[in-house]
């Protein structure tokens, strides 16, 4: 009974992370789904401020890119890099960007802080550079209109990404479900959970596969100014900013989980660990499958 209550609470706690990931550019693509406003417990003008900061950062960045490109003056480059890093960090604080899946995965595995850092960094760079590569591929290889085609590319990557994520979620769900609800084996035979780290790159790839619209727009703007190299550098710096935020979230979860597990007995810690893994796996599988269905449909 206690296990079931823990499982239910955890499931509802994790739900709000995943809702708005399917946003499409309403100007250039027919939306398959429209956002539906979800209730929030805390409203804050701080978030409105974040939106305004993003607007200001973006405008300032475009001014500086134009300045660098038209005047050839390299002095503003450093400031531009600082802005790009800040923009990436703020941008990744919101929904999407793989935080939910990354969090769920490290919750269900024994991950070190270093692994959290690497996972966040890989995810951010895959997310950022899938946008950059997508733009370059569409423009130079396929010679297609980016704005129009990007929706199709995004949908295709979403199908792959959500498919992979839901399968990985199913694996976590089954593994922890078995450990949680099967008869406990004697501690002598209990296998120690291996430190997570081996499957890091495929996971980060699955999570970060969907192109980041922010990087796409920066790349397109740079290309329109004939500044391909600058575009790629900015994509890297924005990804670095996103990496800081995503890694920060993951590391906070890793530290928090370790703290919680230290406060209880080893037996209960094991039960909580498997409960978290079970719920995380279920949430990843359910939402991965749901978004997969929407993306395919």
């Amino acid at each position, binding site marked *: 009974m206690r296990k079931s209550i823990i499982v239910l609470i955890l499931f509802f706690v994790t739900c*709000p992370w995943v809702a708005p990931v399917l946003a499409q550019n309403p100007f250039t693509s027919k939306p398959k789904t429209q956002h539906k*406003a979800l209730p929030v417990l805390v409203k804050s003008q701080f978030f409105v401020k974040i939106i305004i900061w993003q607007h200001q950062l973006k405008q300032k960045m475009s001014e500086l890119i134009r300045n660098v490109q038209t005047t050839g003056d390299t002095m503003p480059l450093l400031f531009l890099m600082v802005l790009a890093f800040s923009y990436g960090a703020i941008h990744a604080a*919101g929904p999407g960007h793989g935080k939910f899946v990354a969090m769920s995965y490290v919750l269900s595995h024994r991950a070190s802080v270093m692994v959290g850092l690497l996972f966040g960094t890989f995810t951010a760079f895959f997310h950022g550079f899938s946008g950059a590569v997508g733009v370059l591929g569409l423009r130079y290889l396929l010679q297609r209109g980016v704005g129009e085609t990007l929706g199709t590319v995004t949908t295709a990557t979403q199908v792959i990404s959500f498919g992979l994520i839901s399968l990985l979620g199913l694996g976590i769900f089954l593994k922890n479900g078995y450990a949680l609800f099967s008869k406990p084996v004697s501690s002598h035979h209990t296998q120690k959970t291996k430190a997570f780290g081996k499957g890091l790159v495929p996971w980060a790839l699955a999570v970060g596969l969907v192109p980041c619209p922010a990087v796409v727009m920066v790349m397109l703007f740079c290309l*329109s100014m004939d500044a391909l190299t600058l575009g790629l550098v900015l994509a890297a710096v924005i990804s670095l900013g996103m990496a800081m935020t995503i890694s920060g979230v993951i590391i906070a979860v890793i530290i928090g989980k370790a703290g919680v597990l230290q406060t209880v007995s080893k037996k209960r810690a094991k039960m909580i660990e498997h409960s978290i893994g079970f719920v995380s796996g279920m949430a990843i599988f359910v939402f991965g499958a749901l978004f997969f269905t929407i993306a395919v449909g």
Partner: protein
Amino acid sequence: MVQQKILILPVLVMILSAWVVPAGAHPHIFIVQRLDVVFDDKGLAGIRIRWKFDDMFAGMIAEDHDRNHNGHLEHDEVKSIRENAFSYLAEHNYFVFITIGNKPFKVNYTTDFTATLQDGRLEYRFFVPCHVRANRNVKKITVATYDPTYYSAIFFTKNKPVSLTAADACEVKTAIREDPATTIYYGMIHPWTLFLEFCLKS
């Protein structure tokens, strides 16, 4: 023990922030707008809308639709933009949400669409027909412009956000403020709205 409590803190922060954070990532497109309230001999004729986009979205549209890359939009390029980067907004009421006396008015179509590109800055102009006959009674209209998906954020320009055209026969009051009756983006944003009142001059 104190250390353990400190360690628990990040988890609690994460759980709480899960319900709060969904404001950060969006929007991706930023629009600054001007509204022109247009009257005719019968009363309100509609709203003329000017949207100036952020430079990066402008770059994206220019990349796809300024086919000769001359930095300006010709007739066929404007047509291409209308078909491929504007008409889909019909799904979202063209981002224009009007109420007439508290009753919603559905924007089924727009007219006079045009797009300009000047020094890399993109502007859309279009007209939303909305006929409301003027008489001695005060008519109350609200015009909220927002993207319900919040992929785009729309702000009023600071300088002359609203103008009136051919309004000589009417007494008109306008005000721009946030509309507490409308919320978007997880209930955190009240869109900036034009509150319009008019009646025939006595």
